[in-house]
């Protein structure tokens, strides 16, 4: 007699995805869905989608979702969470969405310690639009807008979001993981679960940066793309835990309590 020990999580719709072969968006989606299942939040979750390849994530998650303008997911998420603190709010964003056009909203939501879980998929390129430079494109990496390779003099350095956000007091948890092999995927899963738990139990801001592969725009095979993440991306974006406040102090932003304090001083 055989028992199924690995299958599709309930929170992940049983449909084919539009993602390219070997694109680890699919893996990240599955991990998020596993977390939704594990913590039982499907009926009170809302995922905020970015612009980018994962703009169509509403097709893949069995929970409420909402499209945000490019870069604004954390502002939209803030609006939802402040309006309905009982809901579980997560954003799922790419490197352009979170670190380029959305950088301001990202920094401020993190700084405020919004009780939101952020899934940040960093694949060092703008995938959906055809392979332009991302804020996280590596030095010397060729993209359609850096045909001679990213140069410090012209484009500056790749932006390291996990390191930056770890410096903000409002951030409770900040880790960078990867998905290039099974061991990394399992670690990534743990990180995502931890971030979910922080919102659910401690109303805290959890941030997981997932290094991801874009075989299509790197113009290499899926397997080689994973190797590229393992051997090249990690040099610029070291994996690791950048911040993990102990649970007691990870109380983060308790908006209601703050508002009550403010009311006492109202004019």
């Amino acid at each position: 007699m055989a028992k199924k020990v690995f299958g599709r999580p309930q929170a992940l719709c049983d449909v084919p995805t539009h993602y390219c072969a070997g694109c680890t968006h699919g893996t990240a989606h599955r991990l998020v869905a596993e977390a939704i299942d594990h913590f039982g939040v499907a009926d009170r979750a809302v995922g905020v989608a970015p612009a980018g390849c994962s703009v169509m994530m509403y097709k893949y998650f069995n929970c409420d979702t909402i499209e945000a303008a490019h870069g604004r997911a954390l502002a939209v998420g803030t609006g939802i969470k402040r309006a309905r603190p009982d809901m579980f709010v997560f954003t799922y964003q790419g490197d352009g969405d979170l670190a380029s056009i959305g950088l301001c909203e990202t920094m401020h939501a993190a700084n405020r310690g919004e009780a939101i879980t952020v899934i940040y998929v960093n694949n060092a390129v703008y995938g959906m639009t055809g392979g332009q430079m991302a804020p996280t494109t590596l030095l010397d990496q060729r993209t359609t807008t850096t045909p001679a390779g990213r140069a410090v003099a012209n484009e500056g350095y790749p932006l390291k979001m996990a390191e930056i956000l770890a410096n903000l007091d409002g951030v409770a948890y900040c880790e960078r993981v990867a998905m290039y092999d099974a061991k990394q995927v399992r670690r990534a899963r743990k990180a995502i679960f931890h971030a979910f738990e922080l919102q659910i139990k401690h109303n805290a801001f959890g941030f997981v940066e997932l290094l991801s592969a874009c075989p299509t725009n790197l113009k290499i095979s899926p397997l080689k793309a994973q190797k590229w993440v393992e051997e090249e991306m990690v040099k610029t974006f070291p994996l690791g835990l950048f911040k993990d406040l102990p649970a007691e102090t990870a109380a983060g932003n308790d908006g209601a309590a703050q508002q009550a304090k403010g009311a006492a001083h109202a004019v």
Partner: protein
Amino acid sequence: MNRIEINFERCKGCYLCVTACPRNLIEEGHELNAAGYYPARFTSSQSCTACALCATVCPDVAIEVWKDVDATAPANKKEEAKSSG
């Protein structure tokens, strides 16, 4: 017997599972599916341990893993706890 099932129409032939399997039980396929991919092929159940490393790396959730259940063996419970949600 432990085994995996690869969803033929769902697989995009990325072959991350081929590399992931520690026992080389998956190979690149040569049959086209409706989407135009050559899905990976599970070659043998004989030495599969249902470790689920293949399914872990599959971006398309195209692999299901089935483990032979022996109710008296404690090792099975550990495997189940690790790989299920």
